[in-house]
């Protein structure tokens, strides 16, 4: 009796998976385009190319700003993540565990700043960056990215810290550990998965961010991947194949995160929304 039901179930699985694979077609189509010979790009159908070529990737790597932009993005996103964690972890601990005057107000301010539209501060920040001569530097971008990644970081980490049973900390305190010792030997090890989730989201935010990066960068010295892609040059006609190759390179870290670290990514996403 069970067998037919199960077979329908499997068929249902295949249909759902097929539908979702179809959902990802825009990505796969760009992937295919990035390997298509130049002459076949504008001739559709046929959908499939007669042969695959690495020519577009060669052009992007040898002749465009993309390699430099990849380096900039990697640097800026990594530093932003580290800075947000270093500043945010103590803050999150204080918010989650210590009695503070005006804590509710502070929490409200943190939540409100996660909703802050970037456009609202871009003009003063532009003047500030110019005055401090931080335009077109990694430092400038890391600072503004951190200011946006920080509220999210504190929000997520405070939630994860509350999940750590307070008894373990009390036991360590009874054993004579100071606040720093508790932090180092009890909280951080138990918090590791939460830290990973938070770090991933901060990294993705910085990697994907466009408005600030577009405004505060001027040259290859600091242009990040989204900016380089948005400004991808075409002299007489749009180089669709090269743009496709550049988009694929820009997607490598996010795609790797989705495939390899999916568990942490989903956990962080859900935690951010569910916590009160």
């Amino acid at each position, binding site marked *: 009796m069970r067998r037919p039901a199960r077979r329908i179930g499997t068929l249902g699985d295949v249909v759902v998976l097929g539908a979702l694979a179809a959902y990802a077609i825009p990505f796969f189509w760009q992937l295919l385009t990035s390997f298509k010979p130049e002459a076949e790009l504008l001739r559709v159908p046929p959908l499939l190319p007669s042969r695959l070529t690495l020519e577009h990737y060669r052009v992007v790597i040898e002749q465009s700003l993309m390699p430099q932009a990849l380096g900039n993005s990697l640097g800026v996103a990594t530093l932003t993540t580290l800075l947000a964690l270093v500043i945010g972890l103590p803050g999150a601990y204080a918010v989650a565990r210590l009695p503070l005057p005006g804590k509710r107000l502070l929490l409200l301010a943190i939540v409100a700043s996660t909703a*802050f539209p970037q456009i609202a501060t871009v003009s003063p920040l532009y003047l500030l960056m110019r005055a401090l001569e931080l335009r077109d530097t990694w430092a400038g971008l890391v600072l503004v990215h951190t200011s946006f990644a920080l509220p999210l970081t504190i929000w997520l980490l405070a939630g994860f810290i509350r999940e750590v049973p307070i008894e373990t900390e009390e036991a360590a305190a009874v054993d004579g550990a100071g606040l720093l010792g508790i932090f180092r030997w009890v909280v951080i090890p138990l918090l590791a998965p939460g830290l990973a989730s938070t770090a991933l989201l901060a990294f993705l935010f910085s990697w994907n961010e466009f408005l600030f990066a577009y405004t505060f960068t001027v040259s290859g010295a600091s242009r990040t991947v989204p900016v380089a892609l948005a400004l991808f040059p075409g002299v007489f006609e749009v180089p669709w194949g090269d743009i496709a190759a550049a*988009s694929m390179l820009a997607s490598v870290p996010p795609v790797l995160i989705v495939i390899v670290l999916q568990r942490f990514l989903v956990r962080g996403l859900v935690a951010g929304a569910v916590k009160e």
Partner: protein
Amino acid sequence: MLLLAPTVLALAALTVYPGVWVLWLSLQHRIPIFDVSRFAGLDNYAFLAGDPRFLNAGRATAIFTVASVALEVVLGLTAALAIHAQRGGRRLALSFLLLAWAMPAVVTAKLFEWLYHPTAGLINVALGARSLNWLGDPGLALPAVVLADVWRTMPFVAILCYARLLAIPAELYEAAQVDGAGRLATLTRITLPMLGRILLVAVLFRTLDALRAFDIMFVLTGGGPAGMTETLTVYAYRALFQTLQLGFGSALSVVVFLLVMAVAWAYLKLLRAGTTVAA
């Protein structure tokens, strides 16, 4: 207190201080290239009240926000239910969805620019070799931008709903089965009510994001054709950095800021009300 000092300092310097500064800027005529810099009071805001471009941008923002959030919720919920009903391959299914969400919005814009190509775009080919000019036709451009945005952000709604579905206790379903509830009754009486709160949260997050969306239209259409896809944020950005009107552009930014805060406040009220009723 010491633990919070770096956080407070960073947010004060990079969020609160510019937040106040932008208010001050919005009260000035400030055009650096002409060396104009003087106090203007509420002139910039008074100008906005009768600015047809501002009204048009407000219209585009409203349509974009309502259409994309509505589509995202319907599709996201459907996808979450479908994945939840799967027996195997859930991880792969989530990967396909997250792929669209995790990429930079600029990449999404480039993906769709290529899909919308008038002659070689996959969408026109799929529609039977039509030659619709998706991004150039004033009637099609805004729907085209909405579609690209929905593609990128629907997975967020789906993931939140899916996670909530996993947390619904199995006993509830067993009880429903014992009571002889059919599939439809189970869906409308148990599953959807249990999802109510997370859907509200998802709608809040997505609405705030849609109101301040910038990357996708800036790269895909640049606000064109004929301003059909120029949202308030794009208008503010162009005033600030393309016509270099720092004062006027800041006034527009303040309007976006107030809009976002008003929506956030209204939703939080709604969420609170929902909680007290449930409790």
